């Protein structure tokens, strides 16, 4: 975290607003590569789904959003790379500061943004094409045509996603033939292939069995050395196992945000404690 601080000093041009969370939020000041969510409201057809959420998601750490279903975790996550722009009837305000910009501004192109903030979805969603084509798709969009280069990228991405050894002999087979866990790692590899800075994961393990889940969790642990990871999860044990920071959301509001250990061991809010101890309803 010290280094983040240094970086932000060096670039100098960062104009960020310290999130004002009272005692709820995480009170550290945001760095250049931190995602600084500030007073974000999200609405579906005028109905508020996210209410005044502020937090700072630190760089190269795993941050988990937990909370009961329908509390807005995924909605908030999808706003970070503006996937919500594609949803009819979804509007938002507030700002998200990242790399010296408010990425919710109109002038930020969501297509460019998504190449820097990748996403992995709840259900593995490989394209019905070969494994190679799945991964090479993103780089090809960026204009890379060189076969050799593409091969390098595919290999590197698959290795980073811990899938290379399992698929290296059948790169030209359909991705649909992979198991669910492999498909999800393929989707992660596909996200890595465009070399993003942030990876958003929307319940990436909810459709997987325990063994596949364990593999993805290991992978996330590796990924955080290079990437900022934000993960939405239903599974509190998972949040406790893999995340460094945790935000607990309830009914569209951020109830508490802090270091995972603190959230799970000494939550400040009663609601958080009730949720974590399972006395909820």
């Amino acid at each position, binding site marked *: 975290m010290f280094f983040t601080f240094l970086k932000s000093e060096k670039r100098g041009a960062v104009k960020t607003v310290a999130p004002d969370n009272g005692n709820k939020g995480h009170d550290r000041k945001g760095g250049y590569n931190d995602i600084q969510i500030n007073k974000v409201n999200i609405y579906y057809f005028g109905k508020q789904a996210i209410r005044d959420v502020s937090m700072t998601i630190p760089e190269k750490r795993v941050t988990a959003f937990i909370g009961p279903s*329908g509390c807005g975790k995924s909605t908030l996550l999808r706003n970070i790379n503006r996937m919500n722009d594609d949803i009819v009837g979804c509007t938002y305000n507030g700002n998200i500061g990242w790399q010296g910009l408010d990425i919710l501004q109109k002038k930020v192109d969501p297509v460019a943004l998504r190449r820097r903030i990748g996403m992995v979805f709840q259900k593995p969603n490989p394209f019905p094409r070969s494994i190679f084509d799945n991964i090479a798709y993103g780089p090809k969009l960026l204009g890379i045509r060189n076969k050799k*280069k593409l091969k390098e990228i595919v290999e590197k991405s698959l290795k980073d996603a811990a899938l290379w050894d399992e698929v290296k002999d059948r790169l030209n087979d359909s991705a649909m033939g992979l198991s669910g866990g492999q498909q999800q790692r393929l989707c992660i590899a596909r996200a890595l292939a465009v070399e993003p800075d942030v990876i958003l994961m929307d319940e990436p393990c909810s459709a997987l069995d325990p063994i596949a889940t364990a593999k993805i969790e290991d992978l996330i642990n590796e990924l955080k050395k290079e990437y900022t990871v934000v993960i939405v999860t239903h599974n509190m044990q998972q949040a406790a196992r893999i995340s460094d920071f945790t935000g607990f959301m309830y009914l569209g509001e951020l109830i508490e945000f802090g270091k995972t250990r603190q959230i799970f061991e000494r939550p400040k809010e009663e609601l958080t404690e009730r949720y974590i101890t399972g006395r909820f309803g």
Partner: protein
Amino acid sequence: MKAFVGIFGGGAARITKPPLTKKVSRLSERVVLSTLFSASSIAVFISIAILYTLLEGSYRFFQFDEVSITDFLFGTKWVPSGSNPSFGIYPLLSDTLLITGGTILIAGPIGIAAALFLSEYAPMRLRTFAKPVVELLAGIPSIVYGFFALFTIGPIVRDIFPEATYFNALQAVIVMSFMVLPIIVSISDDSLKSVPKHLREASMAMGATKWETSLKVVIPAASSGIAASVLLGIARAIGETMVVTLAAGSIAGGQWSFLKEVQPMTSFIAQTATGDIPPGTSQAEAAFAVGLMLFLMTFLVNWIAGRIVLRIKKGSIVKKEPGKVEKLFREHVLQKKGTSQYRSVTEGEQKTGRSQKIDRSWKFIDKDKLKGNLSRRKVKGYFGVSITALSLVLAFIFLVYLLVEVFISGAGVITWDFLTAEPGFRVTEASIMPAIAGSVSLMLLTLLLSIPLGVATAVYFNEIAKDTWYTRFLRRLIQNLSGVPSIVFGLVGLAIFVRLFDFGPSLLAGSMTLALMIMPIIVVASEEALKSVPQGFREAARGVGATRWQTVKHHVLPNAVPGIITGSILALSRAIGETAPILFIGAMFAKTAPSGVMDSFVALPLTIFFWSRHAKTEFHDFASGAILVLLVLLLTMNAIAIFIRYRSQKRRDW
């Protein structure tokens, strides 16, 4: 984009990143999107073309001295020719109502009964076989029905009712009933199927028989859908042209008799196209005024039916799931008030309590009287189910009879020369070579004109359009256009392409008319195909930074192609069987195949039509030969479509 590629070409395996504020949506992207947008506006063009044709034609009609609007609307005599013509639309209108009413009187009950059998009683295997067979009835061109009415049903009708004239309303009505049957069956079946299972279970649990449940619970619950199916059937019957033109006659009597010659509105319009009426006279221009009337009637009926269907669709969506956000919001509000739903229920129960004991000494039902009741009810049920099954069987019998009849009379005339030789003027030298060539080139040109526009429109609606008043308006237009009678498109083709664009009676004008007509069908079919592509593909592509058009081009379209092809082939097979739209444009006779797009042409349905009306009876057999060829062509196209769908579903791994 190119600039970044250049940097990347170096060697470092690091992808250079453009600044976030630089628009990735390139010029080409914007060009494509606006092209798609303009394509979708074709619906506006078609609508304007229809309105222009009908209004301008009607205006010209009312300019004639012998014509007045009041006479047209309220006059009771329709004598369009002669020295003292009279244009009162009442006889045409009443004949239209007679035909439509008769058709629905037969098709309504049979269709609803058959739908009930299919949805409630038919075993799964029979259902999967029977539904496509019933829908096959809809795939047979109306000219074939007309031929069948005149030459097969006609003699039977005249045997039973000796006072019936050669052309009469009854034979047309009988055949048209089976023609509109598939519409009624498939839409009623859909709405019966969508009745929730728990309603049936509730009724059965109270001791109702299955038949009683169907009659008293399922049908009432599906009533609005059934009503819509009947309305759509009515609209179809009002707009049907070829059957009435061939089999019902050409005297608008307004006599309300099924055994006499009648002339509905569509039949009059068709008559002006067949060369019997000199062009430029008030009689010929009357077609536009009648067309306007016809258009307004079908539009009204379709509009009402559309409203009902829309309401059913919306209703079912709301009932199924209140929606995540809505639920959340409700919970949230309740939470704020401090009264969760759960608690309020328990509180209510505590307040009311139960003070009265149940008294079982009361008996309203006399058990002795019930004896025999159940068996009576069961017999009623068997009887009812048999009737519904019979309705379906009736449809099968009709279909088989029609096909066998066509085959027997058609197969005799088919020789190699009949199919390929240049036709001469003697009876023995009849050939359908120019008609086959005309139909095929018509089809290819229609395909070229309609598919790009139709698919582009569908892509725009399904992938790109935001929900604005304009896109909603366009969608409504397209929905309504698919219900416009084909003869109205004939008038449009004549007024816009032949006259206004000055293409003359050419292949190009004919194809453009057909393309306009099948555009809505292609749009709807393509949208279905696009919708079947999983949302996950789009999210995944957008998630790695593909633009809208890139997502469509790389992932949505390739996966939707088989569906689009299937839908397009079915739409084309509809176009190739249509007679009414090209009645004004096609030629009566041609010696050779058309040599260019501006050449005149004949087509199979046109040939069938002219031969059926020929004075020499040999030509009636030639007509059935041509029908056989047309049906084989259609069947082949349908088989190809089904094969493509089957193969793509088998190969698809998502």
